[in-house]
């Protein structure tokens, strides 16, 4: 049940979109409230057990009926309908059953992309330039006008690593060709052909789970155990106190400490560091923020030490009120590469100049070099975002939602470290322990809200871009009810 003050706060959320196309226009059949009968339901349990005979289902929350999922509501096979603020681990950009994306999916261009999947590197399709230039590149980060396409976030990051290693080696090699020793040693995976070079990442960073990307992932043990890893350097990521505006000097000191350590690593680390990879907000690692100042220092330092800077926007892209979260930093010099996936549905990296292009051919290359069906979907997603000004609207929704959550955290001190102010709906807060966080998420699901956790004890909000004030009200009411149940 809402208190008077939170009712006031949420009422103003509901009013922000009057007079424009709203989620109600796009999704006329979207439920107005969640429905939860039995959860987990019998059908979900039974059918998951049957799926488990051929497919690992140990991580499944419930069996989803995507045909009945609409807008911000996800349905399970038992007829339960949850308000979804997790969105397939932050990867559904514009709600379920989005009619405009469905229209695009039915278009002859999509059918062509699905059934005639090209090896883009050697036999590109006649429409790929248009798909890229009018789609992904129309939303490219400032200062970037080139793209390489891949298939997932891990893949995007690893291709960026490859670009970094090849670029740095080429810089040192100058105009010379590969030496005979490089050509023979590389076939034995030995130096100098396979050099001892590294990618630096930050503690609590998450950059994927293949072998190169996993070596830079520093989030949780379970992501990494038993997998051989490259011995690459790790720098501390600032651990800030929230709300940021109340701890300005403490936080600056913490960021200075981290920058000093990073400088030390650049000065003393015995191996080459080809690139630094960093998330604008460490998402899997617990929604850890750092200030624009911190990232500007990282940019300055990487330039000074001839290290490339890769910004991993896999989870933050399209989610913080701008296309790319690093746009909030106002960098003097753009990063060298920006990787993307998730809500973009396509994956890859942006760059400028020659960084993504080697002198010799067939180095950054593979069979498919991306997937035009996903690039086409990305184009449709970007068009819809622009048509309805969804980033600016998410920023407003998020600002109001932040205020409401701040108000809740006053009444429930167990809700702490609220973060994501001015980052649209990319919000998170902590509960006292991982156990309580997990209990909170389960209770929320029973009460009709599907939310996700991250880090040790955080709840992260990752709704889509058609999440509006009215959805925020529903979510807040459920959160409040669960918190009362847990703590009062």
């Amino acid at each position, binding site marked *: 049940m809402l208190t008077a003050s939170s009712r006031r706060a949420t009422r103003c959320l509901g009013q922000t979109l009057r007079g424009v196309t709203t989620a109600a226009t796009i999704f006329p059949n979207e439920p107005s409230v969640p429905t939860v009968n039995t959860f987990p339901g019998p059908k979900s349990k039974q*059918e*998951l057990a049957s*799926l488990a005979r*051929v*497919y*690992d289902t*140990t*991580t499944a929350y*419930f069996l*989803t*009926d995507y*045909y009945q999922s609409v807008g911000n509501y*996800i349905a399970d*096979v038992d007829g339960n309908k949850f308000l979804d603020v997790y969105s397939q*681990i932050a*990867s559904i950009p514009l709600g379920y059953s989005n009619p405009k994306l*469905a229209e695009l*999916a*039915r278009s002859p261009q*999509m*059918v062509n992309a699905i*059934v005639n*999947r*090209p090896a883009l*590197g050697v*036999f*590109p*399709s006649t429409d790929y*330039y248009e798909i*890229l*230039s009018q789609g992904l590149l129309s939303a490219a980060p400032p200062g970037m006008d*080139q793209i390489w*396409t891949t298939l997932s976030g891990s*893949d995007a990051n690893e291709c960026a690593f490859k670009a970094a*290693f*090849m670029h740095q*080696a080429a810089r040192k090699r100058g105009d010379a060709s590969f030496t005979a020793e*490089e050509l023979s040693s590389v*076939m034995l*995976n*030995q130096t100098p*052909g*396979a050099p001892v*070079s590294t990618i630096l990442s930050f503690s609590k960073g998450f950059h994927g789970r*293949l*072998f190169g990307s996993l*070596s830079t992932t520093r989030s949780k043990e379970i992501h*990494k*155990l*038993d997998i*051989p*890893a*490259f*011995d*690459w350097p790790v720098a501390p990521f600032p651990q800030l106190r929230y709300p940021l505006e109340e701890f300005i000097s403490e936080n600056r000191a913490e960021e200075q400490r981290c920058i000093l350590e990073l400088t030390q690593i650049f000065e003393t680390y015995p191996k080459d560091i080809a690139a630094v990879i960093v998330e604008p907000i460490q998402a899997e690692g617990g929604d850890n923020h750092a200030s624009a100042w911190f990232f500007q220092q990282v940019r300055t330092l990487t330039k000074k030490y001839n290290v490339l800077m890769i910004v991993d926007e896999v989870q933050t892209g399209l989610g913080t009120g701008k296309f790319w979260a690093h746009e909030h930093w106002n960098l003097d010099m753009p990063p060298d590469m920006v990787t993307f996936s*998730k809500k973009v549905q396509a994956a890859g990296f942006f760059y400028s100049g020659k960084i993504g292009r080697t002198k010799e051919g*067939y180095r950054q290359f593979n*069979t*498919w070099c991306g997937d035009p*069906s996903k690039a086409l979907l990305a184009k449709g997603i970007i068009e819809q975002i622009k048509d309805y000004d969804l980033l600016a609207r998410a920023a407003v929704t998020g600002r109001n939602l932040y205020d409401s959550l701040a108000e809740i955290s006053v009444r429930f001190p167990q809700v702490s470290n609220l973060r994501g102010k001015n980052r649209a709906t990319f919000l998170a807060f902590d509960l006292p322990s991982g156990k309580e966080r997990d209990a909170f998420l389960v209770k929320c699901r029973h009460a009709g809200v599907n939310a996700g956790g991250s880090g040790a004890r955080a709840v992260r909000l990752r709704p889509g871009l058609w999440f509006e004030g009215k959805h925020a009200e529903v979510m807040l009411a459920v959160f409040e009810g669960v918190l009362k149940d847990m703590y009062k």
Partner: protein
Amino acid sequence: MTVSEQYFPQEPTAPKVVTSTIPGPESQRKIKELGQVFDERHAYFVADYTKSTGNYIVDVDGNVLLDVYAQIASIPLGYNNPALREVAKSDRMIRAIIDRPAQGNFPGADLAEIAGDVLKAAPKGQKFLWSGLCGADANELAFKAAFMYYQSQKRGYNAEFSKDEQTSVMANEAPGAPELAILSFENAFHGRLFASASVTRSKPIHKLDLPAFKWPKAQFPAYQYPLGDHEDANKKEDARCLAIVEDIFQNWHAPIAGVIIEPIQSEGGDNHASASFFQGLRDITLKYKSLLIIDEVQTGVGATGAFWGHEKFNLSPAADIVTFSKKFQSAGYFYNNPQITPNQPYRQFNTWCGDPARMILAGAIAKEIVKNDLVRKTSDVGDYLYAELAKLAAKYPKDMQNLRGEKCATFIAWTLESGAKRNQFLADMKMAGVNIGGCAEASVRLRPTLTFEEKHADILVKAIDAVLSKK
């Protein structure tokens, strides 16, 4: 009516080359345009897939080429296959495209059926499926499975991780991040991400400047052709290579959790090995408790005379893991030991855990292959084609050395005198109306679709004859 006639009533009856160069002027213009934003230097031409049909690819200049390369061996049933077009327009596909699930956390109600359709085509003896997105991804997921399996056998499948493991792993150090290896073979190709590139041993250009895991490399048999004339020598070659594998297992400084091998090394030059070599390898992996991973990314899905290339080896017991991608459009791996599923959740895990849109397509591809008996038909066409090519090889012995792939359906290759001559041959073939690919330094590989029939084979053979006779 043949299958291709049923599928493609409008398929051209012959290639048509209308420009004096390929790429033609419009292709050149479009390559330049795309090249402003995307590294497009490898493009042969720009294709108009809406106009491509069956075994013929059409470019933006209007050239119509018989395609025996098929998007680097990845188009299974011809361009614009009507059965796949229907599937692409289905409600299930639309749903999969617009509401792409995180299949690990929120599997869709139809996943059991979608996975079931893929599993209907699983290699003999395989029961489980895990899905990825491309061949490199599939192989690396298989490596992860092998490493987790190896450690879990050592630790006990249900045993907890030690404190030491949990702290060391965050520093990328042993014992949490143990030093374990995957063994691969000389000239192998398994992908280009970091672990997959570490087991790839095809060409320096695939690997240069990338840090790699120090993993061992064995020798893949190098046979003398024709096989029938060199049985003894080739048998000795098998024994030599198996002895090297055994030696590595005994002497490598770190445990070898898995061995990865292609049934026919494709990028590396279409190198074949015998069933007894593969059984010998299976026996060694059993002896040393290492998993045998068969990489069917290029050989899988009907092109070698079996649905999966290694099925012809009748391995006993079955391989531990079989990876796939390319012609299946989806990617991932099959396995049969339930303990290859990790003992805890969130270990073999990622956001999407595959892509139902591509899995639906794989299921439909498998169904069409079975319905139209395309494995057997492709095998018959391959036999016909091989016999015709053998005649050409007799006529042009220098330009068609080591013809290989007899009784391997259309998975046929041969070698020219040099890389330069091979490249010239590929270019000349394009001007003669055939889009054809190379592999290794000086080889040509045929990778047509499963709708490639005798009439297409005749056009191909005629074009080869015409090109080689002019030299």
